[in-house]
C-alpha cells in the first residue's frame, strides 16, 4: 500500500513535547521576571504572574494535561530546594539557642490553633478545619530561599527564617499525616489504612532520606572533596530520592528534608561538601514558579476570598506572635522579630498539592475548606514574595542585587 502524501508531517497542531514545554515555561518566566524587576518586585512574582496568565486563572493555555507533564520539573526543583532547606536546619544551633527551637514550635502551634479557630468559625467541619490549619503551618521553602538568594540576604533574620521554615515544614507534614488517619477513621476505612497509611508515609519517607544520606556519605568519602564531582553526586541523589518517593507514593517533602538535615548534622568527618544548589539550579526554579502560578485557580477567590483573607491574617498573627514571644530571650530586637514573623508568611505551592491529595482521597470532601485554603494560597503566592523581600531588605540583610 502506498504511503499517503505528507505522512512525514506531524499532526496539526503538533503535540507539545516535554522539552518544548520546559523551554517555553523558561522563556515565559524569564520575560515575567524581567518585566517586574523594573517595579522593584521580586523576580518570583513575575514568574508566578506569567504562570497565572497562561494557566487556569488566565488564558488556560497550560492545560491540566500539560501541568502533569511539567510535574517532573517541579519535583526536581522542589527536591533541590528541600535538600538545601534541610541543610539549614542546624541542630547545634538549636542546642545553643533553645529559644529558637521554642519559637519554631510556638509559631507552628499558634498559627495552627488560630487558623483552626477561624476555619471553625466559618463553619468548617472540625476535621477539615484541622487539616486546613495544619497545611498552613508550613511556610513556602521555595519562596523564602529564593528571595533570600535573589537579594543575597544574610544575617540573623534570614538565617533564622530558613531554620524556622525547615522546622515548620517538618511539623506541618507530621501533623497532616496524623490527621490523615483521623480522616480514614471518619470514612470508616479499615484499621489497616488508619494505622498503616500514615506510618508508611512517615517511616517510608524517613527511610528514603536516610538511605540517600548513607549513600552520600559513602560516595563523598570515595570521591573526595571535589566540588564538581560532589555536585553531580548530590543532584543525582536528590533526583533519585524524588523519583523514589514518587514511585513508592511517599512524601517528597519529608524524604528530601530528612536527607538535607542528616547531611548537615550527621556528617562527623565532613565528607559531603557544603554545596548549595542556589544559583546553579535557577533554571528549575523559574519553571517551578511558572507552573505554580499556572496551577493556582484564582476563581476560588470569588468563592472564598474573604475567608481566605481571614486565613492569611490569623495565620500571620500566629506566626508573628510565636516568634516575638521568644525574641527577647533569643536576643532578637523587636523589630527583627516582627520582620522574622513576616518572612514566614508565604504558603507553600505544594500546599495546593497536599490539599488536592487529601481532598481527593474520599468522595464528597468538604469543598468549602478546599476553597478557603486555596484562596489563601493564591493570596499568599501574590503577597508572600513581596513580604519576604520587604522584610529582608528592611532588616538590612539584603546585599547589592546580582
Amino acid at each position, binding site marked *: 500500500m502506498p504511503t499517503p502524501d505528507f505522512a512525514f508531517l506531524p499532526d496539526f497542531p503538533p503535540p507539545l513535547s516535554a522539552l518544548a514545554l520546559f523551554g517555553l515555561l523558561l522563556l515565559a518566566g524569564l520575560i515575567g521576571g524581567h518585566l517586574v524587576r523594573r517595579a522593584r518586585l521580586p523576580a518570583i512574582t513575575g514568574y508566578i504572574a506569567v504562570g497565572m496568565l497562561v494557566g487556569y486563572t488566565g488564558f488556560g493555555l497550560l492545560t491540566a494535561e500539560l501541568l502533569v507533564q511539567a510535574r517532573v520539573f517541579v519535583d526536581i526543583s522542589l527536591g533541590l530546594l528541600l535538600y538545601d532547606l534541610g541543610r539549614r536546619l*542546624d541542630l*547545634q544551633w538549636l542546642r545553643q539557642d533553645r529559644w529558637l527551637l521554642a519559637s519554631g514550635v510556638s509559631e507552628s502551634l499558634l498559627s495552627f490553633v488560630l487558623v483552626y479557630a477561624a476555619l471553625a468559625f466559618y463553619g468548617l467541619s472540625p476535621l477539615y478545619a484541622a487539616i486546613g490549619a495544619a497545611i498552613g503551618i508550613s511556610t513556602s521553602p521555595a519562596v523564602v530561599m529564593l528571595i533570600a538568594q535573589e537579594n543575597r540576604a544574610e544575617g*540573623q533574620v534570614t538565617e533564622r527564617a530558613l531554620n524556622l521554615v525547615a522546622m515548620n515544614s517538618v511539623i506541618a507534614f507530621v501533623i497532616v499525616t496524623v490527621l490523615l488517619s483521623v480522616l480514614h477513621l471518619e470514612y470508616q476505612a479499615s484499621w489497616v489504612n488508619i494505622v498503616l497509611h500514615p506510618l508508611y508515609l512517615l517511616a517510608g519517607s524517613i527511610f528514603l532520606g536516610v538511605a540517600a544520606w548513607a549513600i552520600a556519605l559513602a560516595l563523598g568519602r570515595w570521591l573526595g*572533596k571535589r566540588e564538581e564531582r560532589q555536585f553531580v553526586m548530590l543532584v543525582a541523589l536528590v533526583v533519585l530520592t524524588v523519583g523514589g518517593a514518587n514511585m513508592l507514593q511517599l512524601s517528597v517533602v519529608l524524604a528530601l528534608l530528612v536527607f538535607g538535615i542528616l547531611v548537615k548534622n550527621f556528617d562527623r568527618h*565532613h565528607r559531603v561538601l557544603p554545596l*548549595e544548589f542556589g544559583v546553579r539550579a535557577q533554571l528549575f526554579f523559574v519553571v517551578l514558579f511558572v507552573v505554580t502560578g499556572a496551577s493556582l485557580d484564582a476563581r476560588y477567590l470569588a468563592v472564598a476570598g474573604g475567608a481566605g483573607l481571614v486565613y492569611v491574617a490569623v495565620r500571620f498573627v500566629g506566626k508573628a506572635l510565636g516568634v516575638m514571644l521568644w525574641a527577647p530571650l533569643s536576643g532578637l530586637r523587636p523589630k527583627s522579630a516582627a520582620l522574622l514573623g513576616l518572612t514566614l508568611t508565604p504558603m507553600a505551592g505544594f500546599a495546593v498539592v497536599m490539599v488536592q491529595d487529601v481532598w481527593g482521597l474520599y468522595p464528597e470532601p468538604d469543598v468549602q475548606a478546599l476553597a478557603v485554603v486555596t484562596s489563601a494560597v493564591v493570596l499568599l503566592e501574590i503577597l508572600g514574595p513581596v513580604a519576604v523581600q520587604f522584610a529582608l531588605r528592611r532588616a538590612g540583610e539584603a546585599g547589592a542585587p546580582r
Partner: protein
Amino acid sequence: MEPIRFTPSPPYTMGVELELQVVNTRDYNLARGASDLLERLGRITLPGAVKPEITESMIELNSSVHARHGALLAELHAMRDVVALQAGKLNLAICGGGTHPFQQWAEQRIYSASRFEYISDLYGYLAKQFTVFGQHIHIGCGSGDDAIYLVHALGRYVPHFIALSASSPFSQGVDTAFDSSRLNAIAAFPLSGPMPFIESWDELNAYVAKMYRFRIIGSMKDFYWDIRPKPEYGTIEIRVCDTPLTVERAAALAAYAQALAQRLLTERPHRPSRDAYLVYNYNRFQASRFGLRGNFIDPHSERHLMLADDIAQTLEQLAPYAEALESRAPIEELRRSVADEHNDATWLRDAYQRTHSFTDVVRLQARRWAGREQ
C-alpha cells in the same frame, strides 16, 4: 595645628587589640553578623572591650592594660569564651588568622554600598585584598622621646613579629606562597611602612605639622606605620602582626614585645641610624614570604642568618627580663615554635593538606580559636 602631647604611661605595660573573623557555620565563609553579635555582647559585662570594625564580618577585642602576661592571658581567655558563647547563639563562629582563605571580596555583603564604592573607586583592584585581620600590640612608654627611640629600636625586630604571628598563607582561594599575605594588602596604603627617620618627639611634631600643612593627613591617625607612637595612650603600637590562631600566641607576642622593649630601653644597645633602614624592607619581605625560614640581615653586624636563629638568640638575651616580668612561659613557648620552625601559617597549610578543603580549614581554625583543639 596644635603640637601633639605624649601622655606618659607606666613603662612596659601592655595591651593588645585583636581583629577577629566572624564566619557562618554552613560553609565557614565570612558572615554578616558583627552588629548582631555586638548587640548581644553589649548586654553582658565583659573584661576589656569588643568593638565594631568597618566590615560586618569583623570584630575587635581590646584587652585592658596589663603589667603581666598571666593577667593578660587570663583576660583574653575570658573574653574569647564569652564572645564564642554569644556567637554560638547566633550560629556564628569566631576565628583568628590574618586573612580569610577563600572569601571573594566583591561577593561580600559586609560593606555599606557607599563605602564599598568609595574604596573600590580609590584603590581599584587593590581593594579586593582589604579584608584582613591583624593584631596590634601596645607597650607603655614614660616619654615621647622614649617612644620614638623604641619605635626605631624595634624596627630591627619587625621581621620577628611578622614571622611569629604569620597566619595568612591563603587568600581568595589560593595559597599565596607567603606566610603573611596580609602584609601585602597593608602595603597598598600610601602612608604605610616604617616611620620616617625622626629622632625626638619635637621632630615628630614638626613632621606631623608639615604633613598636615600639605593636607596629606588630617591627624596622627592617618599614618599606618608598622610601628607608631600612640600619644593619647602613651604607648607605641606594633601593627605588623597577623591575628594569631590562638589567644595564647597573641598574649605570648605581647610578652615578647614587652621584654624586648624593656631590654632595648634599659640597655639602649644601638643609636637609631638611617643605615639600619637599608635592610628593613628586605628583611620584612623575607619574613612575610618565608616566615621563620626567611633570610635575615642584621643591620648592625651585617651578618646573614636564618630568621629563626636570630629570634632564638634574641629570646635567649631576653631571659633575665622575662624572669623579672614573669613571662618565662610564653617566651619558652615561642622558643619551641622557633625551634620547630612552626608558626600558624604552617598549621594552616597542614590543615589544608589534611582536608583538601578551605571550608574545613576555617572550621578547624574556629575550633582552635575556641580552645577546643590544640
